[in-house]
């Protein structure tokens, strides 16, 4: 009979972690739908980027207020999770504060005391975050793409964090033996008096309830990640590792195009020659991207990593001047479409069945794509090394090379380059005329 809580706890743990694992599997499968891309270069630079940008939050603090608050929540989240280890052991084995058995009271008190301070700080930081979104209404949280789910998602995360921190502190405050120990109850000692005068049995019930709701809440939050922008707490690490290590100005050169250009430029090439054998198995190259499967897997990882903070959009010259383009929306659309493709596969035994939709037009409009100045402000602004520009460029490539659908003025510009090697209709033979003007 006494084992019922332990068994219930184990079941909750298995379900919580199991469901999360199954979603992680889905996540990895979806990311792998992207094209292969070589990221084996610059290993040491990549590690450095991950350590500085993700672990060290170096880009977050470029905006000092939100950066500082975020560091509190981030450090709090990581450190308070040490406590979760104790909770899991207690839950599985029916012990109570097992670390007290192995650690001296003073050390345990120091640990829990630190957790309590962090919990209080996280609570305050999260309240300020909530006010920034809902009271001060900072512009980037109220852009067109932030309606509906993205807006609720941002707030839900904050509410969950407030509740979890409160439960942690209440759990400690109502733990009479912990309070009696009077070590580590730095914050909870001020909450404890609120429960004075309640029958002991009630206090025990409150403590147990807080304990259970806290750990179940953590498991629920873990499973919420996959459906939320909050996934960044995990993916920021791989994303900063796989993020761009070349100069921001550098765009990749399409290898498939290089091959064809080489053929064209080769005076010895025989246009009637039979295609080499191995080429028959090659899927004909599609130039650029019209759907998520045409993007590479790092771009898809980017999409899942996006926290929708909107720093990119708030720096984008097109967006600042009222154009439809929002780099954040490019990332959100990519994720939404990728999720749609994933669900399509789930419903069709793992095979994608054409649904008549694609990322281009159904999610991202041409107007957005053509508004980009390729200035890299969004790439620079992103605190987790996301590259929205690369997706915009790949989609422009599709529009131009597969659809010949560039805006008329750009077609004129390109015709000029083809004819006279300059974007304007001037004769190449006049290139040095300035010398004598």
């Amino acid at each position, binding site marked *: 009979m006494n084992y019922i809580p332990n068994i219930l706890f184990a079941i909750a743990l298995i379900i919580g972690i199991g469901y999360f694992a199954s979603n992680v599997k889905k996540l990895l499968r979806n990311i792998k739908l992207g094209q292969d891309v070589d990221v084996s270069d610059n290993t040491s630079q990549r590690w450095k980027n991950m350590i500085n940008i993700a672990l060290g939050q170096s880009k977050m603090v470029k905006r000092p207020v939100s950066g500082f608050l975020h560091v509190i929540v981030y450090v709090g989240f990581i450190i308070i999770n040490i406590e979760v280890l104790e909770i899991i052991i207690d839950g599985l084995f029916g012990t109570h504060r097992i670390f007290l058995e192995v650690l001296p009271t003073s050390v345990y008190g120091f640990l829990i005391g630190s957790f309590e301070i962090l919990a209080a700080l996280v609570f305050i930081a999260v309240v300020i975050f909530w006010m920034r979104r809902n009271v001060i209404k900072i512009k980037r949280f109220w852009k067109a793409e932030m309606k509906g789910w993205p807006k609720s998602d941002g707030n839900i995360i904050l509410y969950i964090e407030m509740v979890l921190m409160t439960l942690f502190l209440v759990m400690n405050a109502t733990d009479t033996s912990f309070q009696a120990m009077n070590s580590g109850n730095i914050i909870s000692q001020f909450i404890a008096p609120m429960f004075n005068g309640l029958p002991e049995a009630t206090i025990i019930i409150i403590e147990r309830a807080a304990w259970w709701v806290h750990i179940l809440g953590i498991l629920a939050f873990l499973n919420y990640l996959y459906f939320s922008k909050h996934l960044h707490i995990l993916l920021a690490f791989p994303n900063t590792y796989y993020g761009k290590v070349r100069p921001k100005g550098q*765009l990749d050169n399409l290898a498939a195009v290089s091959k064809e250009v080489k053929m064209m430029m080769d005076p010895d090439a025989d246009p009637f020659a039979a295609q080499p054998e191995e080429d028959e198995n090659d899927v004909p190259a599609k130039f650029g991207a019209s759907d998520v499967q045409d993007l590479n897997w790092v771009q898809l990882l980017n999409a899942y990593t996006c926290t929708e903070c909107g720093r990119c959009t708030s720096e984008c010259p097109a967006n600042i001047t009222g154009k439809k383009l929002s780099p954040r929306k490019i990332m959100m659309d990519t994720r939404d479409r990728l999720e749609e493709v994933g669900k399509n596969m789930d419903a069709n035994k793992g095979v994608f069945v054409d649904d008549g939709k694609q990322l281009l037009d159904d999610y991202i409009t041409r107007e957005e794509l053509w508004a980009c*100045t390729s200035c890299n402000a969004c790439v620079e602004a992103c605190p987790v090394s996301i590259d929205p520009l690369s997706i915009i460029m790949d989609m422009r490539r599709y529009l131009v090379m597969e659809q010949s659908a560039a805006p008329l003025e750009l077609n004129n510009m390109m015709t000029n380059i083809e004819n006279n090697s300059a974007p304007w209709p001037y004769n190449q033979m006049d290139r040095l005329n300035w010398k004598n003007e």
Partner: protein
Amino acid sequence: MSEQLRVPTMAEYMAEGKQPEVLFWVGCAGSFDDRAKKITKAFVRILNKSNVDFAVLGTEEGCTGDPAKRSGNEFLFQMQAASNIEVLNGYEITKIVTTCPHCFNTMKNEYPELGGKYEVMHHTQFLKSLLEDGRLTIEGGQFKGKRITFHDPCFLGRGNGVYEAPRELIRKLDAELVEMKSCKSRGLCCGAGGAQMFKDAEKGDKEINVERTEQAMEIKPEIIAAGCPFCNTMMTDGVKAKDQEANIQVMDIAELIANAEDL
């Protein structure tokens, strides 16, 4: 008016069996755009004054392909790259300087993989190196004490991390270098990049160059210094749109230095 500029071509150098120390890549804007041609000439005057042994490709130069690539036309870009690289490699060029950050970025970053490996410098970097080697001296002259702000070209600054070379040159003019609220890595684009130079902007509530000009006006500069022919055009148009032509001049760093030296 025929001021005598010494502008040898690679073909001439080749005929004499010589190799210049650096190739000056003029770029399309620098060759054809009336405003940008002035920048080209200013830079050549400095090169002449500093006795830099340089040459241009002249009629053998062609668009690097940057606007085509950023429009999505990778074919056209790579065709341009291939023919330029053929010419450059044919002349055994090792070092290139250019007054256009777009040409700079493309040749520095995107050509190597296609077989064109050169040391590529933006003209502000090159001028800075001339200064450090004592081949160029800058007197403040007419710019002494003037309020000058530098507008970072995206493809020089964010694109390639070059923020200091142009600023150092401005400081050398004994000018008062003032910064706009968005500068360096957070510099606001002029609106011309990504081939926007060649088309009308999408519908919005403001032109980007006007927004940028307003940022500049906040700090009341006498001169907006630029390092890119396209930024120069955009900022000049922005200043016109805000009726500030009487108060604010838009000048390339090369022009500032050439003027300071009365070249």
